[in-house]
């Protein structure tokens, strides 16, 4: 008895701890916090007055964050940073390109260059920069209100643009309540993938441009129309007309006197022999898919792929006979993995296969392209390419890489301009 008493007296700590435990026991209920993070395009309203008032001051070169369209002019590479501006790189030596400067252009997504004049969009306006002296670039003209589809209120010159952003919402839910996760995730799958097309990465000279020049006219496609500008006087573009093309217009590729316009549902062929008044020659329909186009005298090469904006598509390379441009005919389709842009150089075709790499083909016999695959560079994920005079320029997740393609069946890597935020392909 004495021993037991002694034990109890010497156990005060034990009893204090026991009391704490019993106080906390009723709180033994699980808590759950749920965060739902999703990518969304949020609308941003801007007034053009304030954008136009801001001076455009050429800056020293900055690192690439998110490369967009790319354009090769003389020995210079122009790389668009979507919505921000254009980087200029000296590419005289493709093995060692060096950064020169950055032109900050709010709302810029595409560009084209004509005789020392750089045309670039800035939301609803078309800007003209004199780049004849690359070290002394100046804005020489602003053609206002030519891409007016972005206006939501003309009277106040208010435009709407969409910004890709990541949103996180938090909630406290019952434990193991996966039900909400499913509902939210599915709703995102249907509604969260909107409107990021403006930030996709392709270039003039490549197959996925939206600006192109032909016969002293600048052609610009937006999602629904073709806009024609007279640039006979290179520093004074005149907006001539809009041609409605229907929904889903994506790319424009000039060849000889024709314009080949890729859309989600087909390829439009326009006769631009009268450059100020392009006339429709034919519309080649295919299943809904994303589809850049390149052409030679006889054939158009079109890649169809499934994508965020065209999820129901197919992944294939189509060869279309355009010898009679009024009646294009599908010759053959070849299955591909996820073809993005493509480039044609003589009898050699290069296909960007997205995250799968890039392929090269000999296309002298268009009915046996699959039997004439030259290389499949799986280590070079790519989205588009430009067959330049000195190098094949490839846009991929590493940035902008260049290859010596003088031996077409054995591409030789020259250099890569690394980006801070790689494109996810």
């Amino acid at each position, binding site marked *: 008895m004495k*021993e037991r008493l002694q*034990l109890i007296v*010497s*156990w005060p*700590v*034990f009893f204090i*701890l*026991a009391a704490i*435990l019993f106080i*906390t*026991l009723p709180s*033994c*209920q*699980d*808590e*759950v*916090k*749920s*965060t*739902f*993070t*999703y*990518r969304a395009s949020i609308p941003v309203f801007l007034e053009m007055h304030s954008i136009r008032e801001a001076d455009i001051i050429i800056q020293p070169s900055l690192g690439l964050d*998110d490369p967009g369209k790319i354009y090769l002019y003389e020995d210079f590479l122009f790389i668009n940073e979507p919505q921000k501006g254009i980087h200029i790189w000296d590419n005289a030596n493709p093995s060692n390109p060096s950064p020169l400067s950055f032109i900050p252009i709010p709302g810029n997504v595409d560009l084209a260059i004509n005789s020392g004049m750089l045309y670039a969009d800035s939301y609803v306006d078309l800007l003209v920069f004199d780049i004849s002296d690359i070290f002394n670039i100046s804005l020489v003209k602003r053609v206002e209100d030519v891409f007016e589809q972005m206006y939501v209120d003309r009277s106040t010159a208010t435009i709407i643009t969409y910004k*890709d952003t*990541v949103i*996180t919402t938090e909630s406290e*839910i*019952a*434990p*193991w*309540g*996966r039900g*909400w*996760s*499913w509902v*939210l*995730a599915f709703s*995102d*799958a249907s509604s*969260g*993938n909107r409107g*990021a097309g403006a*930030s*996709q*990465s392709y270039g003039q000279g490549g197959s996925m441009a939206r600006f192109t020049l032909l016969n002293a006219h600048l052609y610009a496609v937006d999602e629904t129309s073709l806009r024609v500008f007279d640039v006979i006087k290179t520093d004074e573009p005149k907006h001539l007309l809009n041609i409605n093309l229907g929904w889903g217009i994506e790319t424009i590729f000039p060849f000889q006197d024709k314009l080949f316009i890729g859309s989600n549902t087909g390829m439009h062929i326009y006769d631009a022999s009268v450059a100020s008044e392009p006339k429709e020659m034919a519309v080649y329909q295919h299943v809904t898919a994303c589809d850049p186009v390149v052409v030679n005298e006889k054939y158009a090469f079109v890649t169809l792929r*499934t*994508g*965020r*904006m065209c*999820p129901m598509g197919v992944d294939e390379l189509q060869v279309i006979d355009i010898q009679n441009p009024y009646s294009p005919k599908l010759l053959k389709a070849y299955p591909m993995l*996820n073809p*993005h842009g493509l480039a044609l150089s003589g009898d050699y075709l290069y296909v960007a296969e*997205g*995250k799968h790499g890039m392929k090269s083909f000999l296309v002298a016999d268009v009915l046996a392209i699959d039997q004439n695959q030259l290389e499949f560079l799986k280590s070079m994920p790519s989205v588009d390419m430009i067959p330049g005079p000195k190098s094949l320029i490839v846009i991929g997740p590493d940035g902008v890489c260049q290859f010596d393609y003088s031996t077409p069946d054995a591409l030789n890597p020259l250099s890569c301009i690394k980006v801070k*935020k*790689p*494109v*996810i*392909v």
Partner: protein
Amino acid sequence: MKKYFLSIFLICFYSTILMAQSGQFMHQFELGILRGNVGNWDGSTMSRTNLSIQSFHGARITENQSVGITLGYDRYEQMDLVPLGFGWRGFQHLDKKVGLLGAFDLGYGSAFLEKRQREGLFETWYEGGFFFHPNIGLTFNAGKSPSYYTLSLGFKRQIAHYFSGFLDPSGENSFNSPLLPRGFSSLTQETYYLNSLSLKLGLVF
């Protein structure tokens, strides 16, 4: 963070083994339950009872105290966790028939037993989280010193995460954010704070 934790854990494990060679080693093996309450949508609660196994391997730092590492296995409703941590054990009156036990464990519950699953573009996985586990109890002399039985009551708080996300169907987006893993268009993260009453029977030797 997990790497640092694992490194420290391994260093402690190694040190404990070294000390064990000097005869100062102590093991405790425990089997018991974790009992908690789960809230329902309608505000009501239902209880859960989960299996918990734990072993402690420590070195005596004083006559009545040991520190070391703990390794365990907790089977919750939806996931199995393997807690790895650092532990402290304190004893009093070990020489009596009934003595006292105080214990505290702190560490990381790993979810490596749960496989990452992918169905089409939908992917799910679990990640573990930190835990702490104070408990008190009684020791019973097993008659053959230095072995004892233990009965302990405690509170265990364990954090764990469940992720479910949709991959971008095209994979063509160029949008990067630290908030969203690469390649995902949406991600749901559910963080569980599992608060349990622990009741365990053990053997010290």
